[in-house]
């Protein structure tokens, strides 16, 4: 059972480039989340989804987009990379209402 899998693990982008961070879970969880983690700032919610076809903004959505076409996958898209988006990105999933979230191991993204 792989849980939540994120790819790539590391990436360096140039300013203005775009990329998609992949997240897939094999637990058939309806709820999925994208966070960014910056030093001393904790985890900030970017976007979340309560099921296939349903997404909504979190606390820091600017500069990002998401889609949820299947239960398993929840990709995060950066369209025009900016240095402020240098961070560690975590994807999480949750089985049912009020249950704990399960995290992937993150994507470390640097934008230069």
């Amino acid at each position: 059972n792989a849980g939540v899998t994120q790819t790539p693990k590391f990436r360096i982008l140039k300013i203005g480039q775009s990329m998609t961070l992949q997240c897939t879970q094999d637990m058939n969880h309806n709820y999925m989340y994208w966070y960014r983690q910056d030093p001393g700032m904790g985890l900030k919610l970017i976007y979340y989804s309560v099921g296939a076809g349903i997404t909504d903004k979190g606390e820091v959505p600017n500069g990002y987009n998401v889609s949820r076409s299947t239960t398993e996958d929840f990709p995060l898209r950066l369209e025009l990379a900016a240095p402020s988006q240098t961070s560690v990105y975590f994807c999480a999933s949750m089985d049912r209402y009020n249950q704990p979230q399960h995290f992937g191991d993150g994507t470390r993204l640097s934008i230069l």
Partner: protein
Amino acid sequence: QKEVEQDPGPLSVPEGAIVSLNCTYSNSAFQYFMWYRQYSRKGPELLMYTYSSGNKEDGRFTAQVDKSSKYISLFIRDSQPSDSATYLCAMGNYGGATNKLIFGTGTLLAVQP
């Protein structure tokens, strides 16, 4: 004022010590509380999860919640070098389907052998 406050540390203790990690919060609507452990270059993993005030024990770990004081704690007994990690508190409230958690900034713990 942040919704959740957590001392960032770092906290350094000798092996075998009892460790106390704490978070305070301001939103009285929070009704469930979690502690996650995060090793370097890894994702957070759930340690403890509780709904109610009082203590919950799991092996060497005890989670304590005091809703009246808006204060939660994680105690680690007989700490081991393998406990060295960042500990994140998280909390949320019932109501709505979004289940968004609010996280503390994390406390970095180092257990010295």
